[in-house]
């Protein structure tokens, strides 16, 4: 009894740590600590569980933990930053897989939940279905991102929807039979297999660009399955942790979808997305990376030096006041901000000067081309606001370009480049700009004034 109470109290401590950690994860300042607090919670929960009276099978447990650690740690440590999303998918998948397996074992040990209350059977079977969907769906997502599976949408055409529905019905039917009292192991096998097929078929038609949203969705599902298992096992830690992940994961999925201008149903309905998703805007066979105001804000906020490159677009948008406000915020954070004034930026000599003076930008911050060109290599972020021709590397490299020979601002030498413009339109000279397709460039589309204002908002929220 006392040990039981101790365990329960430890569980409470554990989930309190989870919640506290999660709160931390929502702000850039506290995220790192938040993660470790949550991890501590996990440690507490594991210890509490191992204290359960009557625990045995220590070797079995040790074996599993050992293999898991041996597989997980190096995978996590070695994965390249670019491959992170698929790694998360994989980790999520195995979590779902674990749930499904446990439910299966429970089914076997209790002879089809014969002597358990109904809710235990329902919860276990729910977790089995969701866990299986999550496992196989995540594997497909992993495969797509790792380019083992074709990243383009793959589907079975018109049959897609009916087929998915049928698979869902089969698995739910099996579960219903079990709840009703049947205990054939074919039922649980059928349930797991049909759920697996469902997971594969739902994710397969979704394009690579939408994958992060899908992974987040599967992540929320795994959380829900964990919560269901907690109900079945009467384990508070599982219930709370699973449900928190389920709820927060759902919101997060929504937020991610919104940030990409998609809706979750549209994504799950599949059949589009993929290479042509809005996450990547494609021009011919080259693609540009879109960014969001929030991401641009974080990039800027954590930079040491930022160079703003204004052009005709800033003038058209009359964004000078907004730019000044953003730069002020950055300087308050200790970021060094310069403005690179190209001799022919805009449409008249001194165009940028007039505007920036109106917005009260100190003269000292305005740098001429020759002076600032030496600075780009030392710059973390170059923010190009409605400038185009004056940043076009073709002026240096392409003798056939009409702007060949014009001196330009070497924005491409900085660590990263954020370009603010409305679309992919060309500038005065009417030529394409290779800068936009460079790997270090991201595009923030929209009217310069509203884009800058949004970045400012996000900076304030940081």
């Amino acid at each position, binding site marked *: 009894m006392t040990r039981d109470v101790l365990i329960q109290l430890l569980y409470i401590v554990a989930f309190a740590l989870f919640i506290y950690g999660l709160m931390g994860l929502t702000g850039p300042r506290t995220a790192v600590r938040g993660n470790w607090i949550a991890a501590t919670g996990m440690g507490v929960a594991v210890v509490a569980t191992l204290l359960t009276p009557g625990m045995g099978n220590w070797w079995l447990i040790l074996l599993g933990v050992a293999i898991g650690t041996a597989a997980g740690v190096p995978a996590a440590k070695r994965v390249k930053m670019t491959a992170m999303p698929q790694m998360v998918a994989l980790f999520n998948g195995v979590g779902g897989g674990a749930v499904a397996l446990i439910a299966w074992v429970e089914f076997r040990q209790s002879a089809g939940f014969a002597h358990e209350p109904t809710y235990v059977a329902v919860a276990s079977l729910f977790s089995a279905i969701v866990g299986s969907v999550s496992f196989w769906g995540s594997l497909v997502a992993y495969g797509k991102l790792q380019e083992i599976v074709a990243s383009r949408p793959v589907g079975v055409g018109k049959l897609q929807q009916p087929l998915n529905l049928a698979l869902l019905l089969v698995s739910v039917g099996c579960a219903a039979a079990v709840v009703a009292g049947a205990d054939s192991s074919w039922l649980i096998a059928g349930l797991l297999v049909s759920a697996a097929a469902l997971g594969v078929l739902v994710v397969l038609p979704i394009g690579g660009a939408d994958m992060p949203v899908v992974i987040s969705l599967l992540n929320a599902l795994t959380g829900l399955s964990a919560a269901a298992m907690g109900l079945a096992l009467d384990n508070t830690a599982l219930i709370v942790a699973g449900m928190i992940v389920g709820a927060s994961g759902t919101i997060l999925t929504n937020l991610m979808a919104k940030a990409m201008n998609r809706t979750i149903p549209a994504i799950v309905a599949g059949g589009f997305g993929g290479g042509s998703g809005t996450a990547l805007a494609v021009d011919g066979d080259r693609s540009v990376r879109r960014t969001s105001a929030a991401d641009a804000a974080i990039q800027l906020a954590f930079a040491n030096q930022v160079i703003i490159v204004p052009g005709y677009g800033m003038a058209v948008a009359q964004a000078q006041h907004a730019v000044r406000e953003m730069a002020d915020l950055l300087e308050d954070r200790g970021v060094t901000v310069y403005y690179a*004034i*190209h*001799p*022919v*930026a805009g449409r008249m*000599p*001194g165009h*940028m*000067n*007039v505007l920036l*003076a109106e917005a*009260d930008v100190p*003269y000292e911050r*305005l740098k*001429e081309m020759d002076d600032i060109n030496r600075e780009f290599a030392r710059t973390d972020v170059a923010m190009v606001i409605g400038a185009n021709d004056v940043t076009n590397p073709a002026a240096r490299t392409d003798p056939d370009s009409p702007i060949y020979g014009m001196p330009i601002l070497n924005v491409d030498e900085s660590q990263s480049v954020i370009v603010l413009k409305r679309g992919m339109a060309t500038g005065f000279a009417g030529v394409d700009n290779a800068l936009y397709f460079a790997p270090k460039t991201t595009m923030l589309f929209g009217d310069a004034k509203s884009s800058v204002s949004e970045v400012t908002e996000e900076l304030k929220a940081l």
Partner: protein
Amino acid sequence: MTANTVVGVPRETSEGERRVALVPKVVERLRARNLSVVVEPGAGAGALIPDTAYVHSGATLGDPWSADVVVKVAPPSPPEIARLRRGALFVGFLTPLTDPGKARALADAGVTGFAMEAIPRISRAQSMDALSSQATVSGYRAAMVAAELLTRFFPMLTTAAGTVPPAKVLVLGVGVAGLQALATARRLGARTTGYDVRPEVADQVRSVGAQWLDLGVDGIEAAGSGGYARALTDAERAEQQRQLGKAITGFDAVITTALVPGRRAPTLVTADAVRGMRAGSVVVDLAGEAGGNCELSEPGKVVVAESVTISAPLNLPATMPEHASELYARNVQAVLELLTDPAGALAVDFGDEIVAGACVTGKES
């Protein structure tokens, strides 16, 4: 109609004076207050106001000198004084401090004179404060004159043919005109700095986006009464000239507006200081009428000394006659409303602080 007080508006005769004491818009308002207005034909010509405009607004054309109240901009010349009716009132600039002879002549002619520059600077009298309204014009114009004479741009320009740095403009003596000059120069894109002997001006200078020229611990403070500055002692003056001489070197344009009521304008920019300036720089001296703030300035002329252009324009408000007249006319209107009752009859209350202050030739004298 005939019972109403008649206000006369003569044509200004002094050289270069393009202003006029009343504009049609104000004539209308005076008419609404039961005053009659007689305008000398051609009175508005300098300000490009045709006689017809006056007639439209309800004035009659005719001889203004026989009116009950004669309103003018410039002080009346002796022949003009002679044309004034005995017992009449005269309202206009009368330079009571620098040329007391004018007041005496008026008194001798049996005319009660009200000097616009003698209206006390109290809150209630702000709408009559012609010194302020005309100084506003002067300050604005001074910045324009500086921009015009300077062989350089005021604003910064980054162009394919190189970058032009912003001009640095210094305003010495930051009263009404000086503040306006600072604000205007800054609008044009110059980097502006202001300096005055009254320490409270520092905040005002900053409030138009300019920097305060801090002459350091030895800076002289000389706030006088009524918001004006006091005259400096000889030692103070020498020290100020020395410090300013050093500070001035870096500026492209220096606009001076320093005045001390009733005295010769202080010399702030010595010949030496001018020599220290870069070739092509400009000094605009608004204190020309009071002798000038720059040793080398010749009132009313533009001289080039050591490749520095020094201009001491006289009567800058006259160079923008339409609005200068409009503002002045509004000031006059406020004075006339003080001197008459709503029925349009004269009602001069010498107990009133403003009337008493402005009247330079009392009935009692």
